[in-house]
């Protein structure tokens, strides 16, 4: 077992884990933060994207112990059902989801895109930047609209 301490959504957590525990597993099974999804488990689909020290990463392809000392933000950490993050609100308003399984990763990646590329995002940029997030329902069209709208809404946050 190995000890790991990290800040998750603003709260410090310390745990003893088997070193092979993936960050996604740690969040879901140890902290019961089940908003982070595991779709493919092979770093293709992006349903598991969270932010580690402010950067998007695939939590199914990162060891929890490797995040010792880091600050982790999950989908639970960005908004509440009553006060959605502007990007979450944009996905709702633009029908940016159908089954919703990929949505947590889409939103965490979308926020990362805004952090890196700013608030005025064209369609091409959004589609390129969402390369690591797969949706099997929507055909992406409304996701792209949602990200563009969410990016603008984040400017007024």
């Amino acid at each position: 077992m190995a000890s790991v301490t990290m800040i998750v959504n603003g709260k410090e957590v310390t745990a003893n884990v088997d070193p092979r525990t993936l960050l996604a597993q740690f969040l879901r099974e140890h902290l019961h933060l089940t908003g982070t999804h595991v779709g493919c488990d092979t770093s293709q689909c992006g349903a598991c994207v969270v932010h580690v020290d402010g950067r998007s990463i695939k939590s199914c392809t990162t060891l929890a112990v490797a995040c010792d000392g880091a600050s982790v933000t999950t989908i639970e950490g960005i908004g509440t059902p009553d006060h959605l993050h502007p990007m979450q609100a944009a996905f709702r308003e633009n029908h940016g989801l159908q089954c919703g399984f990929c949505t947590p990763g889409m939103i965490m990646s979308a926020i990362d895109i805004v952090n890196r590329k700013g608030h005025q995002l064209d369609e091409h940029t959004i589609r390129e930047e969402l390369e690591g997030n797969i949706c099997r329902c929507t055909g992406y069209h409304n996701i792209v609209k949602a990200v563009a709208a969410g990016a603008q809404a984040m400017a007024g946050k």
Partner: protein
Amino acid sequence: MYAFSYHSPKTVRQAATLLGKNPDAKVLAGGQTLLPTMKQRLASPSALVDLGKAEGMSGIEVKGRNVVIGAMTRHADVATSAIVGEAIPALAALAGGIGDPAVRNRGTIGGSIANNDPAADYPSAVLALGATIITNKRKIPADQFFQGMFSTALEEGEVIVKVSFPIPSKAAYEKFPNPASRYAMVGVFVAKKGSETRVAVTGAGSDGVFRSAECEAALKARFNPKSLDGVKVKASGLNSDIHASSEYRAHLIPVIAKRAVAKAMAK
């Protein structure tokens, strides 16, 4: 994934000691290849030596006529580095085309080079630019470093610390990605420095990255896309799989090289 013991050394020296004590250990850099491989049980090291907290392993600086990049520098940091963008824009562009944004935020240059995946992007830049791989023990020229698929000159307990890239006068990377995996079926890095032109090919060789003698000979007289017209590359020694035959890859090499030269000249 099988169980392993986890070590998080604070220095490269400690990492080397740990690797010496655990002959079956593997170095964990960004983990973007190693962890999926372990999840599939294709690798089962008894110990992982994580370089994430080892000091002095990341960062980018210009030293003389070289850009020196720490082994633990993430692809995203190379892609967006003002230093790399100014000195070797082709290298920044290459880093920005690896995997996807989340993978680029974890994956490292040292990890990519040490792994020497036959379809990885970085080895082509290292070879074409004639980089030097600086380890905890010695300096290894690129021409001696890559020794076949997933095989390098690294010895047991040897850790890449930095990679030093001579700044070329012209360079560009162009790849033909597999439409599904986005890995290079053929990727070509061309670099011109003084009178020397080097052309390194990834994704195609059954022994991993290699220099294309045919393309280099054609470009020697004149660094121009037209110089590659009519150049034929032999299919022997190239990969043949469900994605492309060796003949198809052989055809692609001068085609992609030509695009890379055009891109290098446009800058």
